[in-house]
C-alpha cells in the first residue's frame, strides 16, 4: 500500500487528485494538512483521510509521498519541508511563479534525493498522447508551425491576488501548452513575444487575464499561443486546450477536451457541456505512485516544471517591455 498525503486544498485540482487516489485500491490517502484549517479538515472528512493540524506532525507520519496544492507562492516553502522529510513530491503547476524559486525547488529535491513531479495532467489525456505518437512517428512530416489555446473561465479567489498566485492568466494558462509542445515535439523554446494584459476584468482584478504569445522553438518552429481567462460565466464549459500542427505532410488538430455532450437545462439557464472519457488526473496520480514504487522522478519532472516557468516569466517580461525575450 502506497501512502499519500495532500498538502493544502487551495488549488481546486486537489479535490480531483484526492478522488483519484481513493479510486486506486493499492493507494491510500492517509492524511491531509492545510494552511486553511477549516478547508483541510473538510477535505479530510470528504476523502476519509486523517486531518493533521501541525505540518511537522503531518510530515512525521509514515507517508511515501505528498501532493502539494497550495497557492503558487507557497510551493517553495512546502517542497522544502516535504523534501527534508524525505517525501516524494508531486507539485501543482506552475512549479513556482519565479524561475529562481523553481530552480531552488529542483535543487532541494536533488539534494534530499526525493522524486519531484510537476502536475501537468494534459500529458495523460488520451487525445494528446495519441497526437504525440502520431507526430513522433512522422505521420505529419516536419512540423513548421503550431497554433494553440488554453482558454479558461476566471478562477477567482487567490488566482488573481499577485502575492499568492505570482501572476495571472499568462502564467496559469501557458505552462500546460509549453510543457505539451516540449513533450510532443521534443524541442525547447528559444524566444517569446507576448501581447497581453487585463483585457476583460478591468476594475475587478490586478493581474493579466489574457496573453497572445508568439514563440519560437528549436529548428525555427513558429508557435502562437493564447493563454486566457476569457471564457465568460455563461460559456458551456471551463475552457479548452487546443493545438493545430502544420506539417509538411498535413495538419493535425487536437481539441483535447472535446469529448462532451451538450446539455440544455432550464435549471442552469444556459447550455452546458458534460464531459465523458478518461480523467487525465488519474494517469498523473498513477505515474506519481509508480515513481515512488520505482524510486525515480515522476514524469513530467521538476525540470519540466522549471522550463515551463522560465517560458512564462519570459512572456511576462515581454508583455511589459514589448520586446522579444530570448530563452
Amino acid at each position: 500500500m502506497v501512502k499519500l498525503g495532500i498538502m493544502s486544498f487551495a488549488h481546486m485540482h486537489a479535490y480531483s487528485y484526492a478522488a483519484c487516489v481513493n479510486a486506486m485500491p493499492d493507494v491510500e490517502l492517509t492524511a491531509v494538512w492545510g494552511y486553511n484549517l477549516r478547508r483541510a479538515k473538510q477535505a479530510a472528512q470528504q476523502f476519509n483521510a486523517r486531518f493533521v493540524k501541525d505540518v511537522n506532525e503531518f510530515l512525521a507520519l509514515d507517508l511515501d509521498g505528498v501532493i502539494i496544492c497550495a497557492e503558487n507562492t507557497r510551493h517553495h516553502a512546502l517542497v522544502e519541508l516535504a523534501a527534508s522529510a524525505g517525501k516524494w513530491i508531486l507539485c501543482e503547476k506552475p512549479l513556482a511563479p519565479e524561475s529562481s524559486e523553481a530552480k531552488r525547488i529542483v535543487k532541494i529535491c536533488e539534494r534530499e534525493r526525493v522524486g519531484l513531479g510537476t502536475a501537468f495532467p494534459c500529458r495523460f489525456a488520451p487525445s494528446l498522447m495519441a497526437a504525440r505518437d502520431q507526430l513522433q512517428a512522422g505521420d505529419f512530416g516536419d512540423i513548421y508551425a503550431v497554433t494553440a489555446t488554453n482558454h479558461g473561465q476566471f478562477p477567482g479567489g487567490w488566482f488573481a491576488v499577485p502575492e499568492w498566485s505570482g501572476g495571472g492568466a499568462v502564467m496559469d494558462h501557458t505552462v500546460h501548452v509549453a510543457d505539451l509542445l516540449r513533450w510532443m515535439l521534443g524541442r525547447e523554446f528559444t524566444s517569446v513575444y507576448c501581447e497581453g494584459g487585463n483585457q476583460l476584468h478591468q476594475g475587478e482584478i490586478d493581474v493579466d487575464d489574457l496573453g497572445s504569445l508568439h514563440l519560437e522553438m528549436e529548428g525555427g518552429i513558429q508557435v502562437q499561443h493564447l493563454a486566457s481567462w476569457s471564457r465568460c460565466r455563461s460559456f458551456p464549459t471551463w475552457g479548452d486546450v487546443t493545438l493545430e500542427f502544420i506539417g509538411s505532410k498535413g495538419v493535425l488538430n487536437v481539441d483535447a477536451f472535446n469529448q462532451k455532450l451538450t446539455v440544455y437545462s432550464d435549471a442552469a439557464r444556459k447550455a452546458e457541456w458534460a464531459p465523458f472519457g478518461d480523467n487525465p488526473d488519474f494517469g498523473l496520480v498513477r505515474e506519481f505512485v509508480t515513481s515512488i514504487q520505482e524510486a525515480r522522478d515522476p514524469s513530467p519532472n521538476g525540470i519540466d516544471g522549471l522550463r515551463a516557468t522560465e517560458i512564462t516569466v519570459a512572456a511576462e517580461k515581454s508583455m511589459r517591455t514589448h520586446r522579444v525575450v530570448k530563452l
Partner: protein
Amino acid sequence: MNVAIIGCSGMGRVHADALTKAGLRVALCVDTVRANAEALAKAYGAKVAASAAKAMTAKDIDAVLIATPTPFHLEYILKAAKAGKHIFCEKPFCRTEAECKEAIAAAKKAGVKLFVGHVVRYFHEFEAMKAQVESGKIGKPGFVKISRGGIFPGGPKSWFANYKMSGGVTLDCMIHDLDWVRYVFGEPVRIYGKALMRSGKEPMDYSQVTMRLKSGLIATIIGTWAHPAGFRVQAEICGDGGMVQYDSADAPMSSMKRETGSGPSMIVPASPVSESPYQREWEDFAAWVRDDRAPRVTPEDGMIAVRMAEAALESSATGKPVRL
C-alpha cells in the same frame, strides 16, 4: 453602368456575376490569357479585348474592374484614372502602401471614384458580429481572434506562390481580417507577426499575427494557405460581459460527394444568401458613382490595410514588433 473587367480568372468571374446582379453590365473582358477573356465574355454577352488599352479608350465604358495579380493593380489604376473611368479594385489595394498613395492621388486628380473590394465588410456573418458587439450584449470587447484560410490557391505555378508578387497569405487573404478588425475596433498601434512563406514544389504559407489597438483591444489573426484542402473561417470576440463565436463549418448546408476510388472526400459547408456580399459591394460602389453616397470602404481604408499587412510581414522578417 458598363464595366470592363481586367483579369478574367478567379475573382473576375465572381465579380462578373455579382455586378450583373447589382444592375451593372459586363461590357468588355480583358485578359492576357485570351481564352479566359473569351469564356467570360461569352457568358455575359460582352466584347473581348487583348489589351487593357481598349477598356481605357472605349467611350461606352463607365468603370473598370481590376482583378489582376496584385502587382499590376497600380498600373491599371493609373491608366483608368487618366482615362476618366471609375475604378473597382480587388483587394489588396496595391502591393505596397506607397503604391496605394500614388493610386489615391491619381484618382483624386482625375476626379474618378476608386473603390477597394474589402468584401468581408459586406459578409452577413461579419455584419452580424459587428451588430452583436455594438448592441453591447458581450460588454466591452477586449479580445478578438479570427482564423481564415485553407488550401494554397492556384497551385505551385500560380503567382500566389511568388511571395514578392502576392505577399503570401498575410497580404492576400489575412488583409480581410486586418481591415475588418480596424473597421470595427479602431486603429492599430503595434503589430507582431510570423509568416511561414515556404516556396518550392509544395508552397505553404501560414501566418500568425497579433496586434494591439489604440483602444487596448488585442487581436490575434491566423491566416493559412497550409491546409491540404478546404476553406474555413472562425472568429470569436470576447468582452467583459460575454463572447460571440462564428465558425463557417457550422452551416445550413453541407455536402460530401461520393468519389470514385478510395481518395478522400471533403465535407463542403455552404451558407447561401439571396444577395451575395460581392453583389452588395457592387451596389455600394454603384450608389457612390451614381448618387455620390459614401461607400463602406474608402481607398484610405484599403491603403491602411496594406500598411498593416506590410507591418506584419516586416515584423516576420525582422523578428520584432512594428509600431504604427
